[in-house]
C-alpha cells in the first residue's frame, strides 16, 4: 500500500518537473473517508535577507532541496563524545562504597542514566548513518586521545583512592571538569562546521543543555560541601 502511494508522489514530482500541474485525488484503502489530495505545488519562493526580495524557485530547485547532510565533524563529535560519556560512567561507578552522601549518590545515579541515554542516542545516530561505532574500550586511558575534560590515569587513581567527603569533593571537581569538557566539545563541533545537520544539531544542543544543568547542580553541591 505504501508502494502505491509512493508512485502517486513520484507522479506528482514528475509532473512538477515537467511543468505540468496535476491534482491527484487518490482514494486509498485503509484511510478514512476523507479524499486524499496530493496537490501540486503552485509556487515556491525563497525570501532573502531583510531588505532583499524573495526569489522564485523552479521545480528543479525544489526537487533539489535537502537538509544539510552530516559531515566529518558530526561523525567525529559522536565517536568522541561516546567514550567521553563512558568515562563519566566509570566515575559514577566509583561512588558506591566511597561516598557516604545520599546527595552524591543521587547525583551520580542521574548522571549515569542521562549519559547512558545520550550514548544510546549517539550510537543510533552513527548506526543510522552507517558510520562506525567507537571501540568499546575507547574511553580507557591509553586508548586514543584524551578528550577535553577527561581524566587521565593518575586522576582516576586518585579518585578511586579517595573516600568520604574528600571523595565527594574530588568527584564533583572532576565531574564538573568532565562536563565542561563536553560543553567545549560542542563548541568545537560548531567551530569545525558541524552541527548543521538538524539531528546532529539537536543532539549537540541537548548535550550542551544537559551538561549545563548538571554543572549548575554540582556547583551548588560543592558550595554546600565547602560550607
Amino acid at each position, binding site marked *: 500500500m505504501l508502494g502505491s502511494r509512493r508512485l502517486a508522489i513520484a507522479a506528482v514530482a514528475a509532473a512538477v518537473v515537467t511543468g505540468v500541474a496535476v491534482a491527484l485525488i487518490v482514494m486509498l484503502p485503509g484511510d478514512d473517508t476523507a479524499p486524499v489530495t496530493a496537490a501540486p505545488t503552485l509556487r515556491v519562493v525563497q525570501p532573502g535577507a531583510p531588505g532583499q526580495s*524573495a526569489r522564485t524557485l523552479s521545480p528543479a530547485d525544489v526537487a533539489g532541496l535537502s537538509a544539510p547532510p552530516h559531515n566529518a565533524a558530526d561523525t567525529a563529535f559522536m565517536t568522541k563524545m561516546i567514550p567521553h560519556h563512558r568515562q563519566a560512567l566509570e566515575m559514577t561507578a566509583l561512588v558506591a562504597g566511597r561516598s557516604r552522601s545520599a546527595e552524591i549518590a543521587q547525583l551520580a545515579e542521574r548522571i549515569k542514566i542521562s549519559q547512558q541515554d545520550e550514548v544510546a542516542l549517539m550510537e543510533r545516530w552513527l548506526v543510522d548513518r552507517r558510520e562506525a561505532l567507537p571501540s568499546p574500550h575507547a574511553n580507557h586511558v591509553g586508548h586514543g586521545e584524551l578528550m577535553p575534560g577527561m581524566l587521565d590515569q593518575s586522576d582516576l587513581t586518585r579518585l578511586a583512592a579517595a573516600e568520604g567527603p574528600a571523595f565527594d569533593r574530588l568527584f564533583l571537581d572532576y565531574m564538573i571538569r568532565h562536563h565542561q569538557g563536553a560543553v567545549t566539545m560542542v563548541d568545537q563541533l560548531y567551530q569545525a562546521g558541524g552541527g548543521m545537520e538538524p539531528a546532529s544539531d539537536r543532539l549537540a544542543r541537548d548535550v550542551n543543555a544537559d551538561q549545563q544543568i548538571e554543572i549548575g547542580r554540582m556547583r551548588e553541591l560543592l558550595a554546600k560541601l565547602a560550607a
Partner: protein
Amino acid sequence: MPSTPRRTIRSALAAGAAALLIAGLTPGVAHADDPDPRIGLGAGWLDAQSALSNLEHLAHLDKPPGFVNPANPGDFGFVTSDLAFTGHYAIMGNFNGFNVVDIADPAAPSVVTSVVCPGGQGDVSVHGDLLFMSVEESRARVDCGTNPTVGERFQGVRVFDISDITTPTQVAAVQLCRGSHTHSVVTDPDDPANVYVYVSGTAGVRPVATMAGCNNNPASGEDPSRWRIDVIKVPVADPAAAAVVSGPRLFADPDTGAVDGLQNAPPAPTHPSGANWGPTPITDACHDITAYPALGLAAGACEGNGILIDISDPAHPVRLDEVADPNFAYWHSATLTNDGRKVIFTDEWGGGTGARCRPTDQASWGANAVFDIVDGKMEFRSYYKLPVPQTLTENCVAHNGSLIPVPGRDIMAQAWYQGGISLVDYTDSAHPKEIAFFDRGPISATGLVLGGMWSAYWYNGAVYGSEIARGLDVFGLKPSVHLTEAEIAAARQVQLPEFNAQHQTPITWAPSFAVARARFDQLARTCTTTIDGRHNGPLTVLGVTCLDGATVNGPVAVRRGATLLAIDSTISGAVSASSAAAVHLYHSTVRGPVSVSGATGSVAVVDTTVHGPVSLSGGSTPGVEPIIADSTINGPLSCSGNSPAPINLGGANTVNGPTGGQCASLD
C-alpha cells in the same frame, strides 16, 4: 432535545456507532463495550489505518515537495510544526520554512505558496500583514539560504511582510542568544502602533563568536543569557525596526533577587515512572507563553514551572504566581479559558520524540494539568491524558491545542503527536472528559519514526491538525450526545480575522438561534425531572423540569430558581414563572397565557403557539437577551423592565393582539 434516560441510551448507541474504525472494511455496528477503535490501527506513513469519533475528516493535504524527505518521513529537517491563521489562509510552519494553505473551503485546502527558509522550529504567528517565525537551529542563515557552510548565521525571530501572501518578504531578523524555540504575539490594547513578541529560547546559548554578549554565565554571574525571556517590540508601521526591548527575569526570587528563583532541581531523583527525567524540569527558560492581553494576563509554561504573568505593561511583564508538579517533566504550553478563570498546562514528558502513552504510563504522566485561577492564584483540579494507549513506535504526549468556542462550555482541541487529536471538555475542571477524537496508526510498526499531530487548533469552523510527517488534516465537528448541533453552530458562528493559539482574544457570541438553542441543550443535560408522556393536572416545576413530547393537562407553575424546558409539547393551561432560573418553550403549544416575571436566566419562546397573552417582565439576565421568535401569539404581547430587552433574532412573531413595551417591534 432533553435527555430522557431512554433517549440518552439511544444517543449513546448512536455515538458508539459513529466511532467507526475505518480500515477498508465494511464498518459494523459498534457496541458500547467494544474496545476503543484507536487500539490496533495498522501502521503506514501515508496509508495507516485511522479511527475517529464525533469528527468528520474533511480533508487531508500531503506535505508539498521541498518540505518532506520521502526516504525518511521523520527527517528532522522537514518536520511540520505549528499553525497560525489569517483570513482564509492557514500558515503551516516547517523546520524548512512554511507553507501558506488556502482554506477558503476547509474541505479542499490547497498550498498557495511554499516558502523555503530553513531553521526550525518554524513556529509561526501572524499580526495583520506581519508574520513571525521562530528559528533555533544552527543551520539557519539570515537570508534563508539552505547551505549552512556559507552566509550569515541566524538564530532568533524572523519578521515577514505577508501583504502579498504569494511572496512573503523578510523585513527583519532579530538575533537572540538562545534563538527562538517558540514565540508569542502580545498586543497592547492601549498601543495598536506596536506589537510585542515574547520569545522563549530553550536551546543552549549560542557561541559568543556568532553573537556578541551571549554567555553561559551561572545564575549568580553577570547578566546571564539564561533565566530570562526576550521581548521584541515591533512598530507595526516600520517592522524593520523590530528590536529587543527587554529581557524580563520572570523566574527571579522576589526576596533575594536571584534570577533562578524557581524550580532548580527536579522534585525527586527520578520521574515517578522510575525513569530518568527527560527533559529535566528545571526552570531557566519558558518553553511557551500564551498571552491574553484583554485580561492583561499570560500563562507561561516554563520547563520546571507553570507561571501566571501580568502583561498589562507588555515590555515589562511581572510574575504573579507559580506552580510546580511532581509528575511534570516539562511544562510545555498553556491555554487559558475565555473567562480567564482556568488554565491548562501540558507536560511534554519525553520531549515529544518518545512513546509516552504506553499502557503502563499513568494518566498523570505526560498529561494536561487543569487549574482554576482563584484570586490570581492557580489551584490544581485534575489531570487529563489521552484516554487510550498508543504503541511503542508512536511518539505521544500532551501537545498544542486551542479552545473550541462553544458558549457556556470549556472545550479544547488538542494534538497528541501520534496519539492523534483529542477534544476534551473541562467545563468541570475537576472532571475533564474526552468528547471526540481522531487517531492514525503508527508510521512504522517496527521502529519509532517521528510523526503525529504537532498542533490541533480550531479556526472559524473547523479543527486543523498539522501532522509532522504527513501534512495537514481538517476536521468538522459532528453532533453527538456530548455536543449538539446548536452548540456546534454557535461555535462556528465565531469568525476571527486571524488567529494565533498563543494570543487569546475574548470570544463573544452575537445572539442567534444557535446560541439560544445551545443554552437549551446545555440545560437539558441537567434535567432533574423529565416528562415525555401525559401529565394530568397542574404541574409545579422544581429543579430542572423537562417536557419532551409531553402533554400536560393543566397549568404549569415554575417556582423561584427552577427551570422549565419544553419541546414538542402541549400544555393545556397557563404557564407562569416568577423568578425562574430559565424558561424555554420550543416547538410547543400553550393553551393559556404565558407569564414570565423576574427571570434570572435565559428565556426563550421559539416556534411556539400560545393561545393567550404573553407577558415578560422584570427579567435581569446580563448578556442574555430573552428571545421571542417565530411564534404565534393569540393575544397581547407585552414586555417591560427586562434587562436586556427581548429580541426576535429576525424571526418575526405573529401576534393576534396588541404588542407593547419592549416587545413592540417583535411582530
